[in-house]
């Protein structure tokens, strides 16, 4: 297939997969077969694009002109390539995990669940490959809308409330800030195409550019920059596979992906560095990192702790991009992959604990490592990577960020990175300690591991976390290509 056909396939495979899942709804095994087939086919399509992109090619696909001068179009550059690889690869693992989780917990509406999941992946591919801001915005909003049924899956009052926060924050920020920012960009630059070096150079004064940057950064609510982060913990009412793939990988990474994309290809790193319009951004991101870590530290609910950890980790990416040095931008890009494999493992573990032991709070986890050694072993790997223990991938991205911060001469960023590493350790290590070194409480019902598909999935992602540094040539090459 030509690269253009591969792009089209990457969008259509999950979309037609969704239709197939809906049609196969009456036969659960066939239905899950369709999900797995679609996931495998999607990953194959994305993988087939990789050689072209690594060789410096830029596959393109033009669909139609949506507005005069603005196309619905797709272009695969290194950043989008990496994001698509991570999301589509993890969809396969997550689907296996979902089968164990959804059946193990006897969840209702499973067909709707898998349909929305496939649609969410289609939207994610659209975001990853979008050639301009309008296309990106189209799929960005689509991703919010198709994940809403997943967040409100249980349909009870908690789910309704979580869904309202989710929709309110994500649609609210994107409609009130992001859309006007895009339209203003169009009015200023006369184009919305993602262009190396940016499109806004010399179009407006520094203060206008600074204001526009603020609209973008707070408008991209999926990046969960404080104070617009509340939707992410609210989204934790969803079944855990949703939290794992969507609210640790696809949706939130779509947010930071857009942040990097806007900084690098709309504003241009040099433009921003030249007019010092982004000077406030590291401070906001730094504040988010520290504040969210402290909230995580104080949360007893495991998924809530993981969610606030995600809020904090997302701001690493924003901070690194905002430092505007080649190394920090590369670190930001690499952290998208590094955080994805680590955090999905942690969520898988949280879901496995819920399925096997029906436990949701950190304080209930004493001694659980003895009953669920695989799960808690994987959890430990993910946690260590996110703390930044060498040689795990979280260390690599932090290393690049430290270097970038030093290059930029930003002492605040260095201090934030150091402090947050301590905080990371403080909210992850006690869980590991309790699981393995404390005695189980009296009266706990005996249980073993979660159903095997779930365990297999979390072992795979933990293995991927360990393997990533040794197979880091591809992600690092892509990350460096973005950093320039």
């Amino acid at each position: 297939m030509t690269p253009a056909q591969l792009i089209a396939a990457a969008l259509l495979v999950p979309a037609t997969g969704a239709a197939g899942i809906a049609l196969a709804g009456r036969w659960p095994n066939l239905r899950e077969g369709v999900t797995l087939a679609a996931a495998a086919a999607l990953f194959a399509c994305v993988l087939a694009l990789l050689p072209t992109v690594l060789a410096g090619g830029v596959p393109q696909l033009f669909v139609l002109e949506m507005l005069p001068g603005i196309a619905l179009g797709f272009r695969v550059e290194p950043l989008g390539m990496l994001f698509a690889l991570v999301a589509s690869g993890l969809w396969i693992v997550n689907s296996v995990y979902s089968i164990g989780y959804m059946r193990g917990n006897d969840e209702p509406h499973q067909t709707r669940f898998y349909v929305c999941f496939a649609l969410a992946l289609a939207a994610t591919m659209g975001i990853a490959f979008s050639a301009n801001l309008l296309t990106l915005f189209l799929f960005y909003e689509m991703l919010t809308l198709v994940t809403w049924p997943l967040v409100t899956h249980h349909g009870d009052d908690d789910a309704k409330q979580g869904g309202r926060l989710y929709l309110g924050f994500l649609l609210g920020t994107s409609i009130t800030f992001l859309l006007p920012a895009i339209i203003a960009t169009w009015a200023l630059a006369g184009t919305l195409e993602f262009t190396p070096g940016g499109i806004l150079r010399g179009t407006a004064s520094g203060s206008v550019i600074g204001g526009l940057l603020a609209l973008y950064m707070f408008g991209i609510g999926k990046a969960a920059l404080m104070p617009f982060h509340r939707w992410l913990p609210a989204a934790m009412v969803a079944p855990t596979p949703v939290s794992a793939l969507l609210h640790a990988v696809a949706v939130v990474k779509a947010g930071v992906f857009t942040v990097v994309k806007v900084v690098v290809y709309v504003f241009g790193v040099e433009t921003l560095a030249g007019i010092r319009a982004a000077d406030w951004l590291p401070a906001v991101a730094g504040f988010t990192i520290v504040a969210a870590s402290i909230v995580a530290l104080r949360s007893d609910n495991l998924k809530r702790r993981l969610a606030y950890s995600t809020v904090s980790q997302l701001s690493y990416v924003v901070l690194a991009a905002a430092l505007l040095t080649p190394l920090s931008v590369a670190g930001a890009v690499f952290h998208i992959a590094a955080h994805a494999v680590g955090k999905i493992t942690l969520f898988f573990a949280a879901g496995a604990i819920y399925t096997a032991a029906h436990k949701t709070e950190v304080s209930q986890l004493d001694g659980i490592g003895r009953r669920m050694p695989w799960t808690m072993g994987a959890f430990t790997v993910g946690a260590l990577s996110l703390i930044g223990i060498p040689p795990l991938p979280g260390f690599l991205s932090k290393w690049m960020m430290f270097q970038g911060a030093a290059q930029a001469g930003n002492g605040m960023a260095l201090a934030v990175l150091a402090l947050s590493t301590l905080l990371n350790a403080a909210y992850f290590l006690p869980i590991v300690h309790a699981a393995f070194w404390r005695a189980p409480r009296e009266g706990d019902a005996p249980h073993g591991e979660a159903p095997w598909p779930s365990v297999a999935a979390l072992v795979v992602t933990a293995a991927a976390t360990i393997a990533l540094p040794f197979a880091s040539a591809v992600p690092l090459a892509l990350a460096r290509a973005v950093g320039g």
Partner: protein
Amino acid sequence: MTLEHLPALQVMVPLAAAPLIVLLRHAGFAWALAVAASLFAFGASLALALEVSRAGAISYAMGNWPPPWGIEYRVDALSAFVLVLVSAVGALVAPYARRSVAAELPREQHYLYYAVHCLCLAGLLGMTITGDAFNLFVFMEIASLSMYVLIALGRDRRALLASYQYLILGTIGATFYVIGVGLLYLATGTLNIADLAARLPEAQATRAVLAALAFITVGVSLKLALFPLHLWLPNAYAYAPSAATAFLAATATKVSVYVLLRFYFTVFGAPLVVDALPVPQILTGLSIIAIVSASLVAVWQADLKRLLAYSSVAQIGYITLGIGMATRDGLTAAVVHLFNHGITKGALFLLVGGIALRAGSVDFGRLRGLARTMPLTCLGVTLAGLSLIGVPGTAGFISKWYLVLGAIEAGQAWLAALVVLTSLIAVAYVWRFVEAAYLSEPGSGTAVAGEAPLAMLAVSWVMVAACVWFGFDTSFTVQGARRAAELMLGAAP
């Protein structure tokens, strides 16, 4: 030969169909004739639009009396665009009406409904196509009178009161309009719109001309339900038969907007409207109040039809907001939204008609858990609702885009902020339906047999598909609207 007379036939065919239906009084025949006439009008307007985009404006002299003595029918970029919208909605609602009317009206009134449908369609098309200010008044009365009847046919007794309210206010509006036209006649000695436009600059901004502008503004604003002249609309939409609501919501107010545009930009001309009286300021102010207040009121409605009616008042506010900008992008936004909101609201009211048929009422209490029994209908309402919000990938987004762009390019960032912030209120009222239909358990009041009849569902989904289609392929809407905007601002012939 026939092609040459198409402008006349487009109005005459539905107009002649109405008395024919009354003479024969057979429900099935009436329906067939109404469908045929509506389809013919749609075909004719497509042919006219094609001809206009190919060869420029068409002028047709009624009865071969040359203008300005005789009545002229004139199709240009703006009127062709509105003709397509009105006739397309007419052609969709007519086949839809069969099951809906059969369920909601006593059998002896069926033929009446179709007769009035044809009459109303003829009136609205006539208002759009005519190039004569007084002839426009005649068609306005034809359309209005038939609307009063359409609303009064509703099975709820309150429909009579709603119709009466509208009759009083609509008559005041028409009177104001005709007073304005009279004053213009006084100042210029002509009623032909093109001729008026040519002679008004000589008459200058005399008191009579300004009074005419004021009278026409108020009169037409009543018809298009500009805040605070919208009081007739919620009841009228809520109590009219479902098919009539869909037809009226998608077309009636839109044609009135067209009349306003025609008078502002063709007859008076942008300079006079903008400079002599604070028309843009007033329009903008009222639009803002309309958008904010009606959106908020919509959120708290207990009945889906009333909710959508108040949403219409708000959405009309977006259209008049675009007119108030009086710039190319602003007018493009107004014309695009006129079309996009027409199809969006049309789709919504058609689907709501299906719900009304199956659930008996569209009270939110009856909508709980509706997605289980009417999944396709609920999905359609959700998609059209997204268009109402202005989510990308739907027609409504295109309107929002140009409204915000117009505001930004005019340096009025606060207007852009207002447009996007009020979209969030639309999220709130659309999501009231989504939560009720998808997340609530069916209550004791919900006993729904299943999806609406296939014909109704199919027609509704054609409209829903149009809402999505025109969110991606904007070559017809945006280019049509842009040509119309350029025509209005005198930038193009």
